[in-house]
């Protein structure tokens, strides 16, 4: 075979792989526009009926705000904590740093069902050691979901900000100090803008972690407070409700938009700095690698 023939063969193989991977995800999109009252492929008729259902049926209108609030709060909390931890780990020098870093990354490797079970007991019943108590009454609340999801999402901003910090030239911070900026001003004016890309990337990953999380959320959900993915799971077990396909399509669209934003970061920062930030590729690969690791566990 000629090299050209080999090339087309490889291309066909790549397209096939992508089709196998994306097919089951994309099949949901046409199904959501069906006019019938059960899920079927190919869809019968064409309507926005089930999207209307999302906006009117309380089983969805109650879930959507909970999911959005939880994902936003998780993204913010995980990014703040992840940034602080990354600063401590990359800039500090103290014994046990390696162990601590491993602990910070543990949520990526700990079986998620273990976390869910542990969270469930502590959140629902509370945890008492001597006079110190934690949890109890947190199951079935948004703060409870946010805390549990923050644990899961924390490694992403931690990794992306750590990577960003290692690419920040320490001389810039020295230069700022030499010009009269105290440590806080230096952080605010020099370090923070230079790690912003890492923080935004980490926040997006954290948001997505919470946005489509089912296992922990289903343990912590109550009939009154639950998230969209948990509701989809419940719906599909009970009936083939096409509204589940409609909301899945909405979740998919949100994820696509967020990942699209991620792809825009180098373009935006090239406009801002006159060049793409150093190590950006590394952030995305390491962040992406971490995401891969998380999905396989």
């Amino acid at each position, binding site marked *: 075979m000629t090299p050209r023939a080999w090339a087309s063969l490889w291309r066909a193989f790549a397209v096939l792989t992508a089709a196998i991977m994306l097919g089951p995800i994309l099949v949901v999109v046409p199904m959501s526009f069906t006019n019938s009252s059960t899920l079927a492929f190919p869809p019968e008729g064409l309507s926005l009926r089930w999207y209307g259902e999302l906006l009117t049926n309380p089983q969805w209108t109650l879930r959507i705000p909970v999911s959005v609030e939880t994902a936003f709060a998780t993204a913010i909390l995980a990014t703040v904590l992840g940034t602080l931890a990354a600063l401590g780990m990359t800039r500090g020098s103290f014994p046990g740093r390696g162990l601590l870093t491993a602990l910070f990354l543990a949520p990526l490797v700990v079986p998620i069902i273990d976390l869910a079970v542990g969270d469930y007991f502590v959140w629902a019943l509370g945890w008492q050691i001597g006079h110190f108590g934690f949890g109890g009454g947190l199951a079935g609340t948004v703060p409870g979901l946010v805390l549990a999801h923050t644990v899961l999402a924390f490694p992403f901003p931690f990794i992306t900000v750590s990577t960003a910090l290692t690419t920040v030239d320490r001389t810039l911070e020295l230069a700022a100090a*030499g010009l009269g900026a105290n440590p806080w001003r230096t952080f605010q004016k020099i370090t923070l803008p*230079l790690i912003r890309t890492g923080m935004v990337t980490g926040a997006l990953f954290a948001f997505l972690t919470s946005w489509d999380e089912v296992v922990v959320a289903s343990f912590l959900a109550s009939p009154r407070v639950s998230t969209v993915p948990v509701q989809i799971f419940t719906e599909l077990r009970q009936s083939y409700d096409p509204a589940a396909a409609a909301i899945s399509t909405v979740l998919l669209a949100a994820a696509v938009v967020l990942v699209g934003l991620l792809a825009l970061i180098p373009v935006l920062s090239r406009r801002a700095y*006159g060049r793409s930030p150093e190590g950006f590729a590394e952030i995305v690969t390491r962040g992406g690698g971490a995401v891969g690791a998380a999905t396989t566990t």
Partner: protein
Amino acid sequence: MAFLEIRDLTKVYGDKVVLDGLNLSAQDGEFISLLGPSGCGKTTALRLIAGFLQPDGGSIAVNGREITNLPAHRRNIGMVFQSYALFPHMTVGQNIAFGLEQRPFSRKEIAKAVDESLDMVRLNSFASRRPAELSGGQQQRVALARALVFQPQLLLLDESLSALDKKLRVQMQLELRHIQKEVGVTAVFVTHDHEEALTMSDRVAVMRNGRIVQLDTPSNVYRAPVDDFVAESLGEANLLHGTVKSKDGLGFVLDLGDGSSLTVATDRPIRVGDTCTVAIRPEDIELASPPAAGSNLVGRVRSIAFAGNTTLYVVEAMHREIRVRRPNTAGAKNGVAVDEEVALAWDTSAALILADRQGAV
């Protein structure tokens, strides 16, 4: 008391003494270079002055005020880094304004000072550019403007020109010196390039193993080095080691240990029996070909290397290789060929007697 007064400055990393009791004083407006090979402690000294490191001993005072324990951001010292360290997320104007913004100036005063500063480094039309859009020489000038705009008491330069190509470097040396004189700021410049140190400085401090070996004007360190280390740090030198055998009307006769001898005149206090080193700069040696009758020193040309404005001859004489560098002026006859016999001669003042590093003289 001098404007910059460094006393017994010491810095130790583990069991490695990087600075071993450094003493240095500089007058107001003076330009001092710290010259030495990598690892001699020159950059550490600069970082201690800037406040980026804490010394293990000694003191630093500027303008009569001790700053040894002051944090870097309260020292009022301008620094130009080797990598320039321009803030990539800020424009040229914002970079220069940064130091002023940390001080109680109004927005109007800052804008005016930034404008004047851009004037000084001839970059007026670049205020809104990003550092990444500038050439190396332009970045260098922005770094200089940023370090000077807040009128620091002291300007520190860390190998600041080494990233530039040779032609630009020579141009920046002159420009930097011109600006420093105009502003009147006291400057400490770290470099490993002896030409740079000699060109720019009022005084050169030659450093080795965390100490200053010699601190003097460029012509003195070049023409009167205290030892062979200084002699070699500042340029090429033929070093001849020997023992003083006798004294005659012309000077001291040195036995070079392999049967050859050399007569040198000196006012240094040396005695018969001392060992010492003689340094002769290659450009101080004259070649005569063919050797005139009665020439004291005759050798054979081993190699000839043309280097544009000069030619380097390696001549075998006195059982060793002597380097001779002659200027290539237009129309000059450079008729000497490899393997030819030549006579070597130099002015008596060209042979510099050096203290032995082992301390013999």
